[in-house]
């Protein structure tokens, strides 16, 4: 694939992702807006993949390696912290307090 073909392909999926993002989020109730923020916060922790790729190729060059590794540290904090915080929040949303009856579906 030539460089330009790849670029066109990347732009295509970028545009599709924009619409997908709007579509998926518009179904989230305001009740869950904090977990939504925190969950998307965890998802952009995907920069960890970029950080690994850059740091991984940095063995020939100290500056690239060091800067890449700092990026790995920051991105891992983002990923782990993001998912853990979101999990803690979502764990709390309960339909009813535990002792009472817990029947009606969903």
């Amino acid at each position, binding site marked *: 694939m030539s*460089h330009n073909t*790849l670029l066109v392909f*990347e732009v295509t*999926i*970028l545009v599709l*992702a924009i619409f997908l*993002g*709007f579509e*998926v*989020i518009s*179904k*989230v109730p*305001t*009740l*869950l*807006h*904090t*977990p*939504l*923020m*925190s*969950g*998307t*916060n*965890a*998802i*952009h922790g*995907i*920069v*960890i*993949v*970029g*950080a*690994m*790729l*850059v740091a*991984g*190729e940095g063995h020939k060059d100290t500056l*690239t*390696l060091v800067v*890449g590794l700092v*990026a*790995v540290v*920051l*991105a*891992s*904090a*983002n990923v*782990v*912290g993001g998912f*853990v*915080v979101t*999990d*803690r*929040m*979502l764990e*709390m*949303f*309960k339909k*009813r307090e535990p002792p009472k009856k817990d029947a009606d579906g969903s």
Partner: protein
Amino acid sequence: MGADATRLAYLVTIVTFILALRFLSSPAHARRGNQIGAVGMLLAIVVTFSQKSVLSYWEIAAGMVVGGGFGAVAARKVKMTAMPQMVALFNGVGGGAAALISLAEFHRMAPAAGSLPRDISISIILSALIGSVSFSGSMIAFAKLQELIQGRPITYPGQKAVNGLVFASCLAAGAVIVAGHEAQWLLWAIIAAASLFGIMFVLPIGGADMPVVISLLNAFTGLAAAATGFELQNTVLIVAGMLVGASGTLLTLMMGKAMNRSITNVLFGAFGQVSAGAASTAAGGTGAVRPTTADDVAVMLAYAQKVAIVPGYGMAVAQAQHDVRTLADLLESRGVEVTYAIHPVAGRMPGHMNVLLAEANVPYPALKEMDEANAEFPRTDVSLVIGANDVVNPDARSNSGSPIYGMPILNVDQSKAVVVLKRSMNPGFAGIDNPLFLEPNTMMLFGDAKESVGKLTAAVKAL
């Protein structure tokens, strides 16, 4: 792992992220969605480790242990009331990572001038620029929310001109790089200037506008991640980053709409300054403030049919959510119907009040959104306003001179009686007067929210 297998694995990750967001449409399965997303993230990390080009495993693994360890501990230890600043912090480090990736990548790929394809250099500049703004802006938001620096807008003359100049210099340096002069120091300069811009851009924004800012910065980090995807030609980064960018943008617009203010007004309006003059003319002295005692309020609550609790940032500050829940339980055991009326921008991040009340084990069907809550106020006996101010200010409906005029509010003044729990008569954020406090059916219970609610609970018990 081969290149095609890797791309397919990344596709699986993308699908898990979409499912994670999709599952957030209901609290019943939202947690499962988040776990699916976490598994997808783990898959992407494992697959990336197996790349032939990725050497220095041990260094990377060590970096992950350090960063991940910090993230895990911080996320476990943080109190629910401190959640907005924690989200800001994690958001900021993500943005910082994106900026550093472009710095490292630029250093690696541009040993000589004019060697980069234009789209790659543009992506590098964008992720450096947006990532840095997100990093430093989030850190300022963190500092404001953590009260390390004052939450009120910090302004000075010529602020906008200075900010504009700093931003323009970033763009100019970027243009020089794209034109082919690929000097390393230019990208360092962009990162430094963009970080400065991020600081100056968040400083003038007041605490009550934080829900908009945090969600905007979240969108920024997503966009920065998508830009790193272009520079590394990596689909999972592009799609996941853009999903966050799009959703963060939409959420930001929704927050702006809930305040009836344009995003530019929130970001560049320096709210406190504009409002002071208009607000003072607004309170046309219709009555006097009526202070009351916990015992009187307890009687009202205990013999009411329907009570609506209206929480605001004051409840978060006082960490009163558990005490509120205790009071509500007590009232319910006496046969009083208790609901919670939640304004979309109450607190410091979107949906802040819902999370706090969920922490206190309030069942989520009792949490009413604005429209639903407003329909119920006319048949509500007592509205208990706990640390909320602007979101119940009737000036937003009727006084066109008020800075919050036009903002949809919770119409607590339509209920038979209103009890406002407040520390003192000091006007809240931006010094806007609230005529609700002067209404004949409003009573004020002064004191710390947590203490006042505790006194109410004790007084109801004693009845």
